[in-house]
């Protein structure tokens, strides 16, 4: 049956329902496009035949192929769109710099899209809250205090805080830091928020 390749693309994303980004399946997309091209060409020649020679019995076949074309289009569009949703989520989870392993999973157009999204978001955040702008990716949960207790889960090197002091983020060391400084590091799994 037609469209099996296209559904395979969709299944691939559906299996990772937690929002991880699998590698861009360039080969799969190419195969779907090839199938679509073949379907389109066959339909064109059959349409001509039906018109010039009045072969109306070909119409069901033409419709059959046309449905398959639309189906392929839907699957591919859904595949690409769902990937964009995942990539957008990455900006909020990881911050503006992505780990290279994840960047390898994106195609050139997706990287381009991610950069544009980053820029749009930054422009928007600058326009908020007066002169300095407002980082809306911060404080996803309402803060209860300005400083929080954190424990280091891995060596992260030196880290400078507002007043200029430099502290060393060493594995298993514990610190009392401004919340807004470490929120992102917590999300990335470098620090752990300790509640006593």
């Amino acid at each position, binding site marked *: 049956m037609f469209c099996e390749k296209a559904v395979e693309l969709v299944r691939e994303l559906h299996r990772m329902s937690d929002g991880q980004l699998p590698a861009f399946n360039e080969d799969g997309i190419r195969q779907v496009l090839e199938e679509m091209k073949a379907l389109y060409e066959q339909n064109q020649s059959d349409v001509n035949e039906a018109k010039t020679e009045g072969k109306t019995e070909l119409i*069901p076949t033409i419709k059959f192929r046309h449905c398959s074309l639309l*189906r392929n289009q839907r699957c591919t569009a859904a595949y690409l769109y769902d990937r964009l949703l995942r990539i957008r989520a990455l900006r909020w*989870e*990881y911050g503006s710099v992505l780990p290279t392993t994840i960047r390898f999973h994106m195609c050139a157009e997706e990287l381009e899209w991610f950069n544009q999204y980053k820029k749009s978001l930054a422009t928007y955040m600058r326009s908020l809250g007066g002169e300095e702008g407002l980082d809306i990716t911060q404080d996803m949960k309402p803060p209860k205090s300005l400083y929080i207790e954190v424990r280091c889960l891995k060596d992260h090197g030196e880290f400078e805080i507002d007043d200029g002091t430099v502290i060393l983020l060493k594995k298993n060391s514990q610190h009392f830091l401004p919340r807004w400084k470490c929120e992102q590091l*917590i999300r990335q799994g470098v620090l752990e928020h300790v*509640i006593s």
Partner: protein
Amino acid sequence: MDTQSYMPVPPGVGMEENFFSLDDILLSHERLPCRTDTAFPKLGFLEKAGETHDIPEGTKMEMPMWLAKGLYERKRHVISVELPKVYREGWRTVFGADANVVDLHKMGPYYYGLGSQMLHFENAENPEIAQSILQTFISRFRRTMDSSQNAYNEDTSVLVERLDCLERALFRSGQNGLNAFQLWERGRASQLTASSLVTNYRKRKITELQS
């Protein structure tokens, strides 16, 4: 509480399909028993036997739902769609007797979705099918809700095993609510946590290294 920034396109409600929804695409890939009411020239290779050049009129074949929906027309007879077994009278009686004992995952797993989609095809039994789906859902919902609200910190695989896709989604949101509530009760709701995306990536990396 788990703040997720990835929100997939939700599946359509009732008879509607959502164009971009991955769930709906997989749902519409379910196969339906069909009979062709007209010949399809040049497509013989798609059929199982695959020996003839055409698909002749009156061939019984299985078609994915998207294709049946695309080809089906009320006025002209192109194909006729038969009811899958689970929606026929025999099974409807079973669901009517006790819907709780049926393994809907095995029967479906898109029992409700596919059933609603079947209403697009003209069939004398349509009102009964719709009624039966609704009743099945109502009688199973209580158990789904109960188990999702009371299974805290335990293995839920036995509980979800026999649920349809729609019920599984409901079960999951029930569990999320329960977990969030438990966190709040212990005063942990305001704790900042690592993104689940990040932790899952790390898990995968470790397993890849080990293999």
